[in-house]
């Protein structure tokens, strides 16, 4: 009997593919837009996630994100080191500078100075070169997206730059997630960064802290804040802070929210209309089935299996489309580091189930009321 339902469904190819298209398209729209939305927001946290070994970030109480930070006096490092439960603490500087390229162009760059001795603060992976190059004089490591932006079509290795009247030589390319503004990032040692970033009295932007065994990062942040009066946040809190900053200061959530809503509405409209039209067209068949004694419950099952099949195939194709989209653009610097959070397919699945049940239920009401005599009309 259920097989009949499926044959009914696929009998009219146009309607079947119309239904599939509607569901696949709205799945694609919702999943893909949500993915880009989440990834764009997480660009605000990329500065935090690029540093792989710090449990806790310590900053001035007015600092907000990894890029909006107010510098502290250099003794803040020692204050943090004096807190029990801090296994290690290293200085971290993030500053803006203008760089003059070989052609004379001016480009705004972010300078990230990492601890001289341990190089804590560098991204985990390198695309070209090794982190040891920072021990050579005037070395900087550029991030891969920045390299593509600043030296299109050429290798940046060995390029000379002029930073704050100082020489800088690119000797490595780091594998890093770009920031929200996709600024070119130059990594160098802390002492070197002090020379590259035009000077103010206080330079230390952050203190990166590793928690000792047996103390949670959260507990440690409270201890640091109590003892030093500085602001301390765990890695996840600080990453969330960066995301919140973008939510508060840009129109992205509103714009993408509208797109996701539109995807939902388009999905409901296409699927709902096609599905209810399909049911209505088949009302004679349902009538005939009723005439030969098929119960309403069995018919509901049939409609459910029809909806389930269309939904499953459409959803599968839609998710596949999103995956294809993300992987096709994964080499594009704009989409560097984009991924599909596992929650998003579940959300779009829930949306899909909602659309299907909604339209199926509406269509089913008509079938339920159908009298067996309808077959003769």
């Amino acid at each position, binding site marked *: 009997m259920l097989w009949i339902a499926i044959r009914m469904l696929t009998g009219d190819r146009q309607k079947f593919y119309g239904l599939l298209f509607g569901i696949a398209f709205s799945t694609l729209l919702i999943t893909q837009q949500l993915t880009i939305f989440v990834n764009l927001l997480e660009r605000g946290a990329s500065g935090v996630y690029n540093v792989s070994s710090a449990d806790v970030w310590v900053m001035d109480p007015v600092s907000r994100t990894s890029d909006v930070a107010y510098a502290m006096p*250099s003794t803040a490092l*020692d*204050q943090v080191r004096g807190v029990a439960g801090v296994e290690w603490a290293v200085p971290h500087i993030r500053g803006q500078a203008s760089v003059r390229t070989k052609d004379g162009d001016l480009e705004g760059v972010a300078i990230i100075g990492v601890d001289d001795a341990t190089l804590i603060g560098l991204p*985990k992976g390198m695309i070209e070169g090794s982190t040891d190059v920072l021990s050579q004089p005037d070395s900087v490591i550029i991030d891969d997206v920045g390299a593509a932006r600043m030296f299109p079509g050429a290798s940046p290795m060995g390029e000379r730059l002029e930073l704050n009247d100082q020489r800088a030589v690119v000797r490595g390319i780091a594998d890093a997630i770009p920031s929200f503004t996709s600024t070119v990032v130059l990594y160098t040692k802390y002492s070197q960064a002090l020379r590259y970033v035009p000077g103010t009295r206080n330079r230390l932007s952050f203190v990166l802290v*590793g928690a000792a065994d047996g103390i949670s990062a959260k507990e440690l942040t*409270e201890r640091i804040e109590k003892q030093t009066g500085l602001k301390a946040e765990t890695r996840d809190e600080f990453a969330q802070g960066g995301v919140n900053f973008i939510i508060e200061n840009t129109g992205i959530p509103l714009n993408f929210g509208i797109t996701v809503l539109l995807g939902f509405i388009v999905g409901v409209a296409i699927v709902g209309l096609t599905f209810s039209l399909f049911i209505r067209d088949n009302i004679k068949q349902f009538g005939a089935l009723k005439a030969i004694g098929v119960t309403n419950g069995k018919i509901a099952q049939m409609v459910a299996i029809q909806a389930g099949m269309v939904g499953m*195939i459409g959803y599968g*194709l839609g998710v596949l489309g999103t995956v294809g989209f993300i992987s096709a653009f994964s080499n594009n610097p704009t989409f560097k*580091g984009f991924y*599909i959070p596992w929650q998003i397919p579940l959300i779009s699945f829930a949306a899909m189930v909602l659309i299907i049940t909604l339209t199926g239920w509406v269509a089913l009401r008509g079938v339920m009321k159908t009298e067996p005599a309808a077959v003769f009309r």
Partner: protein
Amino acid sequence: MALLPQNLSFSRRILPIIALVGLAFAVFFIWRGLPDRSLSEPDQEPARATGALANSSRVAGAGLVEPSSEIIDIGTALSGLVTDLRVQPGDYVTKGQPLFTVDDRAARARIGETNAAIGEARAAIAEAQTAQRTAEAQLALYRSVEDSAAVSRSEVIKAEGDASSARSRLQLARARLAAAQAALSSARTELGRLTIRAPITGEILAVNIRPGEFVSTMGGNSQPFIRMGETRPLYIRIDIDESEAPRIKLGAPALVSPRGAADRQVNAEFVRAEPLVVPKTSLTNSASERVDVRVLQVLYQLPADAEGAEQLFRVGQQVDAFIPAVDGENNGGGKTQETAE
């Protein structure tokens, strides 16, 4: 249900399979694509408090290695050209050992000159003595003549005058000798001042002059000529933020490691805390530099027998230090830790 395998329906059979395979692929892709945000251990050992300090209240500070005598910038008493350099960086010199000499030709010429003046003065003395003797003899001769008419009164007066003036000339010549001898002594002193000697026993840390260069008493060169200091033992001067200063347990040994070798820590003995709290030296090179951080400087002595300490700590090197703190005082930090543990 007369569906045979040979007339496979695309919509009914293949499409669902494509969708399922696609879903499985998507799950795999999504799972693989999730970003790696795990925390990793740093590759290189950062400075950390170990042992008893690891989980108790402590004060951290950065410091510099310095000689126990502090660094002595050797100056010169006299300006001139460097003619001879007797030491090189790393030499261990004893007190009074010559370090370098300044051009002494002028001083030596003066010595020759004064020697000549001494000879001249001696000759003048001899000459004056002869003249005196002659005059004395003449006067004695006149005096021995008893017949007052034989010698005129004026002759006698003249002879007396001659004798007296010869005595004065002798005195003058003696005074000249004394003056020439004094000049010689002064020239010798000057010669001695042209050899610059080590003020203490210690190690030569830097030599910024080369033979032929001009050294001036006015400074002039931005760099000190020679820097030296007693490096046995070495001291460490640790800057402690003034806000942390009350917490520090003075007298307790500090755990010290040089930059870049954080895993090789040594225990340094407390020497003293400087009585003067000074502005923190921060090297920003800014013209409008202001200071609002002041630091208490605490001195610690590096153990001389620490394994490889010679290679590990060098004068001027930056070190990280951890010092025990006074427990549970003044800012509740210690108390929270106690309750937390």
